[in-house]
């Protein structure tokens, strides 16, 4: 993995929404942008934008199936095990942010 590529990958993984998308793909398998938007609290437009970034970083690939593209995790520049753990990390980032808000409300 070149320096440039790793910077791209880490930039892609720095966003909690993108990690959530990776997490979803790693847990449930390939899905279209529409399916991802339906099962996650993210708009269809935002999903497409994030998927494009993830595809550029080589973390997901879109396979054409009829009119739709189905996205899957790729054994890309990072090992899939790392992507998987990044997904679990993303879950904790969201939870800890929610915990911070909860404590502020108390």
């Amino acid at each position, binding site marked *: 993995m070149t320096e440039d590529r790793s910077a791209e990958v880490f930039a892609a993984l720095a966003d909690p929404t993108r990690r959530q998308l990776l997490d979803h793909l*790693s847990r449930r*398998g390939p899905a279209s942008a529409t399916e991802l938007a339906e*099962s996650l609290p993210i708009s269809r437009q935002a999903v497409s934008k994030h998927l494009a970034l993830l595809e550029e970083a080589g973390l997901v690939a879109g396979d054409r199936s009829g009119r739709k593209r189905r996205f*899957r*995790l*790729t*054994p890309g520049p990072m*090992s*899939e*095990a790392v*992507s*998987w*753990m990044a997904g*679990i*990390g993303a*879950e*904790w*980032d*969201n*939870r*800890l942010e*929610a*915990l*911070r*808000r*909860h*404590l*502020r409300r*108390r």
Partner: protein
Amino acid sequence: LRLRLGKPETGKESVERIERRVELAAPPSEVWDAVTEELSEWFGAVADLRPRPGARATFRWPDGRERQAVVEAAEPERLLAFRWLPFERLPSGATVMVGPGRVELTLAPSGRSTVLTVTEWAAVPAPLAGGAGR
């Protein structure tokens, strides 16, 4: 349902670890309440967890998924650890085996704040851990 906590059959599954550390503007006593009684307020799942070693905890996600855990350690204002049981109930009601995992939350006072460290050990499924792709 019989639980197999031993080595997975494929032998390829690997257990990985992630860690997060945050400083929270509340004393350990309040953070302890938040990570036990008030877990459902922020965890993303409705959690029924009694901080007592050996207690069975249930987590229900809004999409209908359900996982269970066993509390391994509970030291008020210091440490909460639980082990995920290796199965998950899907929204359809079907139960599937999933990798085991363990979560540890440690609390440390820091002035008027609390440093919370979360560590999760999770099993990466064999097709991913094996590097063979799908």
